[in-house]
């Protein structure tokens, strides 16, 4: 994966990064430009710069299911009949295949959205905060399915998800989006990452406090 001099409005300016890692997490506080980067990588915005990515599939923050299609149909239009059945089973929704999205809970919809991304062809899985509304037990099961996918790029604000799923972690801040620190999975990474994240949050709070006082 290679990003070279990426710029998009004021949110991302001259952002570059290159890695051969199998899985990468982009970890940072809300509103720093992570989701904008995700949209650029998905090809949903016009931007300046170069991106080199293998073929990919994606799951968004929201499930984005077609409301008039049943759960299984939402999968089968992308994956085909057989794969749809298989993935419904893998994410524990076999019995809910005939339900419409409005009849499913938020977590169930999110699982369906993940199943769609996991089952679709593509070498890289792009995920933007994929676990919102999913309970802990299910989360571990889904993480196991995600690890089986060849390559992963995870956008998250949760250090635990990043540590569980990725070989490399980029701690970012912004806007404009910038890399604060780079981590590779080694012994003791948890403490280092936690410490850096804590420092970043304290720094951001101080900045926002100062700005507030000046106003």
């Amino acid at each position, binding site marked *: 994966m290679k990003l070279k001099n990426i710029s998009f409005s004021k949110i991302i300016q001259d952002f570059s990064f290159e890695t051969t890692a199998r899985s990468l997490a982009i970890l940072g506080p809300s509103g720093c430009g992570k989701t904008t980067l995700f949209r650029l990588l998905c090809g*949903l915005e016009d931007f300046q710069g170069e991106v080199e990515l293998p073929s990919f599939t*994606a799951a968004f923050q929201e499930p*984005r299911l077609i409301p008039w299609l049943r759960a299984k149909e939402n999968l089968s239009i992308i994956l085909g009949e057989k794969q749809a059945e298989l993935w419904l089973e893998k994410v524990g929704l076999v019995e809910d295949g005939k339900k419409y999205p409005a009849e499913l809970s938020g977590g169930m919809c999110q699982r369906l959205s993940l199943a769609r991304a996991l089952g*679709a062809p593509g070498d890289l899985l792009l995920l933007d905060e994929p676990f919102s509304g999913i309970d802990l037990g299910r989360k571990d099961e889904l993480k196991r399915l995600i690890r089986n996918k060849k390559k992963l790029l995870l956008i998250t604000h949760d250090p635990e998800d990043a540590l569980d799923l990725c070989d490399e972690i980029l701690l970012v801040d912004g806007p404009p989006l910038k890399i604060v620190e780079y981590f590779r999975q080694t012994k003791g990474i948890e403490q280092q990452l936690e410490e850096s994240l804590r420092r970043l949050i304290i720094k951001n709070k101080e900045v926002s406090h100062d700005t507030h006082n000046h106003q």
Partner: protein
Amino acid sequence: MRISKFWAWFFFFLLWEVSALLVHNSLFLPNPRETLEALIHILQKGESYTFLLYSALRVLLGLGGALILGSLLGFISGMKKEIGILLMPLESLLKTVPVVSFIMLALLWLGSRGVPIFITFLMTMPIFWSAAEESVLKADVKLLEMMDVFKLSFRKKMKAFYLPWAKQYLLLAFRQSVGLAWKAAVAAEVLSFTPLSIGRKIQESKTFLETADLFAWTFLLLVLSYLLERLVGREAKEY
């Protein structure tokens, strides 16, 4: 004060009865009883049903054509902005030119049998056009993005997304078009003297000064229009 539909209709009939009494000339304004008699007389004649059926078929053909071509143009205009702008004059023209001008032109181009179908088509097509275009413009951007990310083919997008989404817009357009379709079709039948048509019967009522017949045929027209509207109305469903 709240007035129920029943009392509104009752008041209307009362007004009609009183007006007919005051005019006291069934040539100008037949009373409800005379109209009812004319209606029963019409319904007792077998040939009346042929006229009703043929007129209804013409309206349905015109509406069907308008639905197909209007939707197609609407989808194209919505998806490709440049084509939408290019076609805008045609849409405005169809919406503003008086129906009579089109009827006269159509009489020159087509035989009298084709005119009502063509006029119904022409008058209602812009409604379907606008509805389909609006459905595209108001489609959920997040779902469109999702389909782009998964590289869904155009055919699949149409089948799974655009057509079911546009259905509610097109059904509403259909309900809005039915009344206009009947008005336009019968006006065209009257002016082109179409054989086997309600319009022709209305024209004959005028010629033979049988005003009660004219009222009765008009009533039948309202009933047919209402029935067609109800038929589609039941299908309407919102997501």
